[in-house]
């Protein structure tokens, strides 16, 4: 049997990625989904070595608002500081390391450790300890020795907050690169701020995080895995005679070939769009006249006419397909991951729009919806099959024959420069960018480690 060799015996992570552009071949070794050594290397070289998504600014709107999360293995919390800036600290008391923030979110001007009562302010400074006089002589109690550890870098773009445990990273804008233009389109059409709609979902899936990360840019699966969703919705809409924004744009799943494109945005980020068969089913359609005064016809086609999806490597998914959707995820074991999802919407939108947006979100994206469970089931089945070592390779070559280096016409219209474009959302070009980035980060990270 061709069982996987240990990571330390591998020369390079390029061994896992069979990338032969001249021969139109792109494959990945399925060992990357089930080797625990590889997950450890991913924590070191990807999650704890570069920018990762933390939360939305709307999660920490007011001074003292905090949001507890993780960067790779490491627990952290994001906090709106008293000067209005956003900080992020390791979620471990500076004294004996108990978890300082035990809620997911909350508001406090002072954080009191539940173990020995040490106090910290929103800047992470230790402000008091319990019973100071009987434990230290005056000259040896230096509160700053207990200060919380800040993460190396924190920055946000258009409300999306990112952090890095490593200081040796490019600027966030450089990291996002071509993805910024698509984030702008996600955020910008509506002059109002975006808010996180009350309620969220958190679920764990028995698969490697990359299998679900691949599922995002993969539109090829949708007409197969989600045909039952489309048929169920069509049944319901006939029964209820729905119209306007209450309808769901099922055409994207049933119409056959749609005008569409997908992009390798560089740095492992991806995007795709498809022409919306029923643009009137989306809340933004009602604002088209106002928007047409501010945007060019080409931009309007992006905003009104196209369903859009993007992933920011390694842990953020943003889309405006059935509804407006923000998702982050993290590995918790080589075959287990945790996902958090939110519906994101303009502040103050009319109730009819908000209700339609939410119901469509619930229909599709939740672990109790009519589509996400099927994605989870497929991902878990792929995880089991990753142990078919003798078949070794997962193919991601679809669409190489149609690949365009750099931007296509639609990308030029919006003003972004992807590494590569392709003329269908069901191509696998974007995933190739994900795995090239994965390979390069893993190789350079292990290279640094081994000198």
């Amino acid at each position, binding site marked *: 049997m061709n069982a996987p060799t240990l990571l330390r015996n591998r020369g390079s992570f390029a061994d896992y990625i069979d990338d032969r552009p001249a021969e139109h071949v792109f494959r990945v070794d399925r060992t990357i989904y089930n080797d625990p050594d590889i997950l450890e290397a991913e924590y070191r070289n990807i999650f704890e070595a570069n920018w990762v998504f933390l939360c939305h600014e709307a*999660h920490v709107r007011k001074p003292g608002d905090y*949001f507890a999360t993780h960067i790779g293995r490491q627990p952290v919390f994001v906090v709106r500081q008293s000067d209005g800036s956003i900080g992020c600290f390791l979620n471990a008391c500076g004294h004996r390391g108990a978890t300082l923030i035990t*809620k*997911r*979110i*909350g508001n406090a001007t002072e954080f009191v450790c539940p173990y020995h009562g040490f106090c910290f302010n929103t800047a992470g400074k230790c402000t008091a300890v319990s019973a100071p006089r009987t434990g230290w002589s005056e000259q040896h109690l230096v509160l700053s020795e207990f200060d919380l550890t800040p993460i190396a870098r924190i920055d946000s773009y258009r409300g999306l907050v990112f952090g890095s445990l490593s200081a040796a990273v490019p600027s966030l804008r450089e990291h996002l690169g071509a993805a910024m233009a698509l984030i702008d389109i996600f955020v910008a059409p509506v002059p109002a701020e975006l808010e996180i*709609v*009350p*309620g*969220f*979902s*958190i*679920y*764990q*899936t*028995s698969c490697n995080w990359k299998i679900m990360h691949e599922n995002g840019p993969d539109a090829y699966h949708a007409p197969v*895995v989600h*045909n*039952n*969703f489309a*048929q*169920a*919705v069509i*049944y*319901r809409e006939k*029964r*209820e005679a729905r119209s306007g924004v209450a309808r769901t744009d099922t055409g994207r799943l049933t119409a056959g070939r749609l005008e569409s494109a997908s992009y390798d945005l560089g740095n492992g980020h991806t995007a795709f769009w498809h022409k919306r068969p029923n643009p009137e089913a989306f809340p933004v359609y009602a604002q088209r006249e106002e928007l047409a005064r501010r945007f060019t016809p080409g931009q309007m086609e992006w905003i009104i006419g196209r369903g859009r999806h993007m992933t920011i490597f390694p842990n953020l998914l943003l889309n405006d397909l059935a509804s407006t959707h923000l998702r982050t995820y993290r590995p918790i074991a080589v075959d287990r991951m945790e996902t958090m999802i*939110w*519906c994101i919407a303009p502040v103050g939108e009319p*109730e009819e729009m*908000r*209700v339609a947006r*939410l*119901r469509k*979100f*619930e229909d599709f994206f*939740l*672990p*109790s919806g*009519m589509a*996400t*469970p*099927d994605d*989870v*089931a*497929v991902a*878990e*089945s792929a995880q*089991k099959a990753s142990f078919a070592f003798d078949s070794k390779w997962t193919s991601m070559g679809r669409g190489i024959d149609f690949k365009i280096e750099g931007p296509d016409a639609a990308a030029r219209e919006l003003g972004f420069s992807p590494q590569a474009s392709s003329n269908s959302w069901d191509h696998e070009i974007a995933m190739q960018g994900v795995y090239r980035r994965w390979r390069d980060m893993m190789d350079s990270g292990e290279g640094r480690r081994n000198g």
Partner: protein
Amino acid sequence: MADPGLTPAVAEFLYREARLLDARKFGEWLGLFAEDAIFWVPAVGMDRAYTSEPETSLNFIYIVGRAGLEARVFRVESGGSLASNPLPHTRHLVTNVMVDGESAKGIAAFANTQVVAFCEPRGQQILTASYEYLLRREDGQFRIASKKVLLLEYLIDGYFDFFTV
């Protein structure tokens, strides 16, 4: 104050509903719901409290009108949903049934449940919840006007559906 004789009748109705789900007689189960029935499973917020305004908050499931429930049944019976194929077998353990009162709107009833679901390859899933019902009397029978399911295990392992809570 509700009629004290009502509790056994309501309990029997809830047990019958559970039995229909466990027997996968989803068509008969749908027949227990009024045409304008609400089926609501609130989500939780980041503060771990249940969402309370279903229209304008995110819910696990919020269906207004029996057609939405019919679509759910249609999907799991279609054979096209990998998550529902094979369909998990379930056992609903419905307990603590209490009638909270009767008004012009109907009979308010409470119960606890634990639902054990099993299928290959996911294995056993146990979900625990409280039910809050509003039952109407129609033609000498109860009809479900609304069913609210307050799920204990909001951190979901995999996925769940209308018949596993």
